[in-house]
C-alpha cells in the first residue's frame, strides 16, 4: 500500500490535466446541481388545503367583505380564520350546488369539526404578531395610498388570495415544519428596522415587539 501511494505521488505530475481535474469538476457540478436544484425540492413537501375555499365566490356572489370573517374581537385579538361554527351561520346546509361545498358541510359542519387549515404565514410560537398594530389606521397614517389588500401583502406578509377561486398549494419545510412562505425575521425587519419608522415608534424593532 505504501508503495502504491509513493508510486502515485511520483507519477502525479504526468497525469493529464483533464484527468486530474475531471473528478474534481464532476464533484463540483454535481454538488451545484444538488445544492441549487434537488435539495430545495427535497426540503419541502407540498400539501393541499383541506377545503377548497373560494374567496371570489364569497366576495362576488355572497357580497361579503374581508372583515366579515377576518375581524378584530373586543379584547384586541384577531379572528384569523373563521371557525366552523361561524361558517355554519350560512353553511349549516349547502347553500349552492357544488359538490365541494356539500363535502365541506358533511365533513366539518355536521361533525362540528375544524378543518386542519394550513396557514401560509403561520409563525412559530415564539412570535407575537399584533394584527391590531398593523392596521390601516396605523400604517395608513403615512401610507395614505395603501389599500387594506396591499397592506396585508406588504413585505410578503400574506399571499394575495383574497380574489382566488381555489387556495394555492401549501409547501412545508420538512425540517422546520415552517411554511415555505413563512416570513423570516429579515422580512419583518424590512419595515421594522426602517429608519423612517423610528419617528413613529422609537422601539419598534425591539426584540419583544415580536417575540414571546
Amino acid at each position, binding site marked *: 500500500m505504501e508503495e502504491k501511494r509513493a508510486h502515485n505521488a511520483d507519477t502525479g505530475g504526468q497525469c493529464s490535466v483533464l484527468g486530474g481535474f475531471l473528478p474534481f469538476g464532476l464533484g463540483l*457540478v*454535481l454538488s451545484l446541481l444538488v445544492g441549487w436544484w434537488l435539495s*430545495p425540492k427535497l426540503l419541502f413537501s407540498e400539501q393541499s388545503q383541506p377545503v377548497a375555499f373560494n374567496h371570489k365566490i364569497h366576495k362576488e356572489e355572497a357580497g361579503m367583505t374581508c372583515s366579515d370573517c377576518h375581524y378584530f*374581537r373586543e379584547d384586541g385579538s384577531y379572528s384569523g380564520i373563521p371557525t366552523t361554527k361561524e361558517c355554519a351561520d350560512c353553511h349549516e346546509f349547502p347553500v349552492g350546488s357544488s359538490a365541494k361545498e356539500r363535502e365541506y358541510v358533511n365533513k366539518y359542519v355536521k361533525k362540528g369539526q375544524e378543518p386542519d387549515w394550513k396557514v401560509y404565514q403561520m409563525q*412559530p410560537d415564539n412570535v407575537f404578531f399584533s394584527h391590531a398594530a398593523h392596521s390601516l389606521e396605523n400604517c395608513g397614517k403615512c401610507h395614505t395610498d395603501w389599500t387594506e389588500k396591499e397592506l396585508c401583502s406588504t413585505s410578503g406578509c400574506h399571499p394575495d388570495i383574497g380574489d382566488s377561486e381555489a387556495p394555492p398549494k401549501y409547501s412545508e419545510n420538512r425540517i422546520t415544519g415552517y411554511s415555505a412562505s413563512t416570513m423570516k425575521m429579515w422580512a419583518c425587519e424590512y419595515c421594522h428596522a426602517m429608519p423612517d419608522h423610528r419617528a413613529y415608534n422609537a422601539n419598534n424593532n425591539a426584540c419583544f415587539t415580536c417575540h414571546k
Partner: protein
Amino acid sequence: MGIDRRSIVKFLIGGAVGSMFTPTPWILTDDISIWTQNWPWVPKNIKGVDAYVPTVSKLCPSATAMLVRTVSGRPVRTMGNPEHPLSGGKISPLAATEVQLLYSPSRIKRPLRKASDGGWKEISWTDALALLDEKLGFVKGSATRLAVISGDQTGTVNEVLSGFVASMGSKQFFLMPSEAQTLARAWELMGGAGMPGFETAGSDYVLALGADILESWGASTRTRRAYCEARPHGEVPAATYAYVGPSCTNTAVGADIWVAAKPGSQAAVALGLANLLIKAGATSSAPDFAAFKALAARFEPATVAQLAGVSEANLAMLAEGLQKAKAPVVIPGSEFGQGGSVAAAAAGMALNLLLGAYNQKVGLRAVPEFAPVVEKAMARKDVMANDLAAYMQGLAEDNKARPEILITYEANPVYALPGDVAGTVAKIPFKVAIAQFMDETATMADLVLPSPLGIERYDDVATPAGCGVAIYCLNTPVIDAVNPAANIHGGDVILGLAAKQNANLGFNSFKDVLAAKAKAVGANVADLTAGKAFVSEAVTGAQPSLAAEAIAKSLEAKAPEGAYALAAVNKLGFGTATTAVPPQNLKLVREFELAGTLMYVHLNKATAAKAGVAQGQKVTLKAGDGKAIPALVNISEMVMDGVVMAPCNLGHTAFDEFAKGKGANVARLFTAQVEPGTGLSFWTQTGVAIEKA
C-alpha cells in the same frame, strides 16, 4: 485509469467546494437551528378565543371566587374574580392551580373496584352502582351499619348526604373536623343563633387567637382583602393586626404584633385578656357574666404566663390594644385549622362580646343560616354534634359498633384524622370513596367512584366557616369534564342510590337540589348562574351567653405529655388532605421545609440546644406509644421556646409522584381527647419527644 483513491478524494473536494457555492449548507444549518426551536416533543401553543368564566373554588378551603380563563373552551388557568366578595380579584395559592389539577396524575378517571389481589379493576358506573345498591340493601334500617363522611364544608351536598343517611335509618353522618364544627359547637353552648362569623373589614384592631386568618383560617382570601384594604402601600396601617400563637405563621408575619403562646393555649390567653378587660371596666349583659367574671379572675397575667407562655407585658399590651380600639375583633381558632378546643373558641367569642363587638358591622356576628331544602336532611346542629374523631376512636377501641359500609365523599379521613385510623378503617367490610384524587382513603376503598372537579360540575358554596356575612354562590360547569367517565356528581350518585333504596329525598338530580337551594336562599337564580354571589349582611339572634360553665369545666382537660409541645402549621399552598401538594405548588416548599423524602421540623436555637440537636440533623418526633415521624431539624427563630413546629399536609402515602413520600404526616402524632364540658374532641395540644435518629 480506474477510480483510485485519489480521484475519489478529488471528487469529494470538488463536491465540498461546489456545495459551498450553493445555498444548501447554509439553509440546512439554519433549518436545523430552527428545528431546535420547535422540537415536536415540546408542547405547542394552542390558540383560540379567550373567555373568563366565574366560579368558586370547591377545592380550596378559602372558597376563593375565581374566573377560569378558557381559550376556545379549553381551560387554561384560574384567576381571582374581581366582582366577587370571596375574592376581590385575588386568589389563594391552592385555587390558583385548580385548572392544572384537572390533569393531576392522581385524578381518578373512572369507577374502580378493588380486585382480590389488591389491584384495581375498572368497572362501569352501572356495575358500580348496582354493587353499591346491593350492599346498601344489607345495612338499611340499621343505626350503626352505615357511616358517611363528607369533606365538603360549604356545599348543599351535605344535605343530600345526611338526608340519605337519615333515610337509611342511621345518624352516622360526619363532616371532616374543621373550624366550622368547633365554632358551631361553641356557639351552641353560648346559645347563639345562626352561625358565628367574624368581620374584619373596617376593624382597627384584629386579634387572631391562634387562628391563621391570613393563611388557612376560614375564607382567607376574603379576610386578606380586608387586611389589604386596611394597609395602604407605604402608609401607616389603619388597623393593627396581632397574632397569638406558638410559631411565626404567615399571619404572624403579616401582623404587626406576634405574641408567642403555647400551642392550644387560646382559652387561657382569652381568659387572661378577659380578666384584664373586665378589670378595666368591660362588661356584658350576658346572663352568665358573673360566672364568667369569676372564671376570668382566675387568670391573672402571671397564671397566663405560666399556662400559655405569654409574658405579662404582652398580655397587657394586647388588652390595651383591644380596649383602645374603636372596632376590635378577636378571632379564635386552632393554629392549623382543625382540632381546636371548643372552650377556646367560646372564650375567644366571649371576648368579642365583652368588647361590644357583637352584631355590629365589625366583630363577631350571628350570621343567619340558609334554610335547608332536603327535607330529610339532618339539622346542621346535629351534624356538627357528630364527633368524627371520637367515633373513630370508639371504633378503634371497639366501644362502638363497626359499620358495614363507610362512604367517604371527597374526604380523606385516613390521612387527616388525628392518630392512625388506617387500621380502624381497614376493618370496615365495605368502603366506598367518592373522590377526585387517589388519596389515602380512596386507596383503601373497595369501590372508588370518581368525582368531577368543582370547575367541571354544578355545585354551590354557602357561607364559609367564620365568614362575617352570609354568602351563597352557585357553580356551573366551566368546561366539559376532562374525564367523561368521571362526570357524575356525588350528589347525583347518592340521589340515585336513595331512589333505588326507596329512600326518596324528593329530588331527581343534584342540579334540582341546587335550584331549590338558590330559591330558598332568596337569591336571583339568573345572577347566581352568571357567577354573582348572593350576600346578606343581616344578623340574627339575641344576646348569647359567655359559656362560662362549659369553659370552666373544659379546664379539667389533662395537659399534654412530652418534653416539647408540637405546633402544626397549615399552609394552603401545600394543599389539603384531599388534594395533597398540587404539582405546581411543590415549588412553594422552601429549602428548609423538605429535603428529598424528609421534611424539616422547626425549633429555635434554645430549644435545639436543650434537645441537643443541630441544624440538618435527622430526628424522630415521638408522641405517646408508637406514634412517631421522622424529620430533619431546622433551627428557626420563628418558633417559641420549647415548641417544635411542623407543617401539615406533607407525607402523603397515596397520590402521585409529586406528593407521595414527601415528608411525614404530622397528623399521626395528634391524640384527640374529648373536651370536658364541651363534648367535642380536640387535638391542638400534643406533647412530643425529640429523639436523634
